[in-house]
């Protein structure tokens, strides 16, 4: 079983407009700037009438993290970016779904 080594990983919590295309904008950014994205979890935010989504990102980018955040904040449909701990994150809690 692979464990998540907490040192190297960071978790970002994004609030985004729930448009078609938002996922492409976020994933496209990570791909073209070659940021290591290890996990992504998205759902519409309850009580926003389907207008906003929450996107959780699991990153392996300690060094470039500030740059990653700045670039992500520039995306028009990204309303906010917050840094979170891996501990107790959605990625830890769902680890069971990702074991072989």
């Amino acid at each position: 079983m692979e464990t998540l080594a907490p040192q190297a990983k960071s978790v970002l919590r994004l609030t985004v407009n729930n448009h078609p295309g938002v996922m492409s904008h976020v994933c496209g950014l990570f791909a073209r700037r070659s940021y290591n994205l290890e996990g992504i979890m998205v759902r519409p935010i309850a009580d926003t009438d389907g207008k906003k989504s929450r996107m959780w990102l699991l990153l392996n980018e300690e060094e470039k993290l500030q740059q990653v955040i700045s670039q992500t904040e520039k995306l028009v449909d990204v309303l906010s970016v917050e840094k979170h701990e891996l501990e107790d994150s959605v990625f830890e809690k769902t680890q069971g779904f990702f074991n072989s």
Partner: protein
Amino acid sequence: MTDSANNPIPQAAQRLSGSQLIIKLLERQGVTTISGVPGGANLPMYDALVGSDIKHILARHEQGAGFIAQGMARVTGEAQVCFASSGPGATNLITAVADARLDSVPLIAITGQVPQHMIGTDAFQEIDTFGLMLPITKHNWIVRSVEELLEVIPEAFRIALSGRPGPVSIDVPKDVQNQMIDVTEWPEPGKAIETPEFDAADVTKMMERIRAAHRPVLMIGGGIVYSGATELLREFAEKLDIPTVQTFMGLGVLPHEHPLSMGMLGMHGARYTNYVLEECDMLIGLGVRFDDRATGKVEAFCPKAEIIHVEIDHSEIGKVKNPVLSIRGDVGEVLEIANRDLEPMQRPLWQQRVAQLKEASPLILDGDDELFRPYGAIKHVANILDDSANISTDVGQHQMWVAQAYPMNRPRQWVSSGGLGTMGFGMPAAIGAALAQPDRKSVCFSGDGSIMMNIQELATAAEENLDVKIIVLNNGHLGLVRQQQTLFYDKNLSSVKFNQGTDFAACAESMGVKGVDLAKEENPLEALKTALLEHGPCMINLPISETEMVYPMVAPGGANRDMIGGEA
């Protein structure tokens, strides 16, 4: 006929199709000229253009249309629009959009798309324009309903113009263009939003540091141009007596002969300019992004200097160089505060050292009195023209010679593809400059390689009878590649010679543009003068030797101190 679209609250609802709505919204944005090429998927938009006051420039290739709009945007600072159809029309636009992204140019690309019910079926001329434009725009849309246009069009202008400018693209399926809507209320035209706030106390801190520095250098870039901060910058530099380097995008901010100007830095900067940067103890970057052609090997760039960085795009701060102090904001606003009660000071020791380095290692413009040599050709053209002319280039040696030697004396005079380095940029951009500023001459320096990449736009220049002058520095080669092969690949020249030459003067004539071949003129200088000074488009062929080189040169990836050539 009165146009109720210009009235914010029309008496009665106006029934419009999506394409009519697009044109009305563009008119309300103040758009007067659109370049483009029609096709199946944008037919409704072209139908709606008829009867509009917007002038359409029919480019001969969508890439030409994109660069024409860029030329208009670069000399005015306004957002400009280009049109293309779906599929190949959209793919042809891609290069011009990507180019706008890297040089922060507010370009709005509006493309037709197949009707929504056919999207995803590999329909005729269907491509994923949204997906293709996504990585090369500030933001982009595919419009799903006619109502969305009311939001998307003003938003597109807002985004293109706000903060650090850039391109956006809007893909409009044909059924959305045909869908009807009753418009009762018009949205406000989109314009740049307020610039980010910053703490004036940081400016005070910055000033303290700058005053305390012994050997400061200013590095100024496109941000000064885009913020309209040229006058403020000149005052700032002069009062603080700081030697100044300009990035490729910042050329013209300080006049060419300004005593504080050290010209361009980096790969093709003067030797002394790069040496001064080696010695400086503080580098103040204003509206710059520390591009690798400017910095060379980053670890070796300004090794003794503390960095101060003022930049509107916060993701540029700390991306390449970690500053000791940074301000995220509009550089003009920062300078305005900095200039308040600015006590003049002098730096005689540092200026003396700079003068010494300049004396020992000046920029050498070899052959600048000979018409058929690169610097000579450029100097002769500059002597014939005045500062009102806009100067564009293509990409290659000729571009770097012009960047080094042409006396650029005002912002937005210089129009060149910096970040993407796109051959084929020059002539259509010059056409755009001439369209936007018909009272200025629009002069494009090109090479015999680059000019072929959008040569079809000669016909567009002729059709509009624009005052565009194209000077081809013709070396029969892809000169800059030849130079690199000569210097870095042991003279192993591979695919850089055109064995079949082109008669550019005849080629121009065939498209209704006057052609002059200076090689065939009895008095070439007189012929050049006449060609430049009379009104109307003209193609001027000026042969030069293929052995000419751009010096100095820093090897790609090398440190700026390790320059090749250009010794006094």
